[in-house]
């Protein structure tokens, strides 16, 4: 892989906010895993191969209540099921990538780097899969390092989890705000939030998040289809106004135009077949 020195720096700049927000959370996670009984080597290993804040907090919690391994692993599997959705939604940007690349990419995928990469893929047409992998790795090393430091400091460090947890919430809030481009997307988001609260409480499990995501995204998708075919002028399809015309918006407009052009070409092809 050939990389210009400017590229790794540019990608690092994009990954930086993510890396920074991982430091306090990683420290906290390391402290908790240590308290749950994992030694520093295992904390390093779990950060590298599981690499997900939610999952590692779950492991730490279940270790402290002495849950059996089988139960921890099953819970974890359900918690991680959402990555099936995330992986699928990124996959069309990785069509030209090799099996080996996808293996490595999937291995280091998690919520936050997915969010960064999805936004970049959607708004920046020069964003490549190897850049995306680089973001994953920068975040991975920061994460693992913070976890290890956390486990070394152990109980001598008091971290306010309520505050630290909010770093991720703020990151997700930013992502949602950036992605709400249409009124319909906003409605989908609100629906997802309501369903999430309902199913998390009803099922007493984070599986509620998966169900809410599935239902809300399906509802949004179906509503989009129906409205576009039945009432193309509906105000639901209006764009949400941004504060200013930034470069990102322009870039996105180009992308949409490109996509429309492609669709038209494909339609022409279909006509030819007929």
């Amino acid at each position, binding site marked *: 892989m050939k990389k210009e020195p400017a590229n790794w720096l540019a990608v690092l700049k994009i990954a930086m906010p993510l890396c920074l927000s991982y430091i306090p959370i990683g420290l906290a996670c390391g402290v908790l895993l240590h308290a749950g009984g994992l030694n520093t080597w295992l904390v390093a290993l779990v950060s590298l191969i599981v690499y997900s804040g939610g999952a590692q907090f779950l492991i730490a919690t279940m270790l402290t209540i002495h849950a059996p391994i089988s139960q921890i692993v099953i819970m974890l599997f359900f918690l991680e099921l959402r990555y*099936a959705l995330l*992986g699928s*939604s990124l996959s069309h940007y990785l069509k030209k990538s090799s099996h080996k690349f996808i293996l490595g990419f*999937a291995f280091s995928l998690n919520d936050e780097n997915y969010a960064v990469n999805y936004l970049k893929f959607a708004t920046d047409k020069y964003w490549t899969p190897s850049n995306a992998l680089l973001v994953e790795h920068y975040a991975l090393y920061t994460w693992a390092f913070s976890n290890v430091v956390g486990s070394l400091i152990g109980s001598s460090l008091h971290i306010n989890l309520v505050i630290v947890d909010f770093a991720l919430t703020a990151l997700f809030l930013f992502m949602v705000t950036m992605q709400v481009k249409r009124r319909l997307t906003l409605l989908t988001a609100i629906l997802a939030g309501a369903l999430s609260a309902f199913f998390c409480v009803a099922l007493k499990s984070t599986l509620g998040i998966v169900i809410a995501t599935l239902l*809300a995204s399906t509802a949004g998708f179906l509503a989009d289809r129906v409205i576009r075919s039945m009432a193309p002028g509906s105000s639901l399809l209006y764009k949400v106004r941004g504060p200013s015309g930034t470069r990102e918006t322009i870039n996105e407009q180009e992308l949409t135009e490109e996509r429309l052009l492609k669709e038209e070409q494909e339609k022409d092809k279909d006509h030819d077949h007929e």
Partner: protein
Amino acid sequence: MNDLALVLLAGVAAFIPRYFPMLFFSKRKIPDWFNEWMGFVPVSLFTALIVKQIFVTSTYAFSVGNIAAMISAVLVIVIAYFTRSMTLSVVLGLLLMWALTTFL
């Protein structure tokens, strides 16, 4: 030893849902409807996660008691909307949360 087994099994549990769907869909022509559908996934997932973190407690009870997080969340949305900066959103969000939990 048990701990090592746990960590390795956890790695497997984390890897399966990440890898196979991604591999499956990257090597096939994805139908348009699937792409459109997936376009609604991130926004739904992130909102679901946010709501879980703010309104659902660790014992899975619904709660509107986390005033600090609610106020911070609204302000983070405003910050994100006007600055379009992830760094500012996260850093100011943390500061807000810290200030509100300390002084409320």
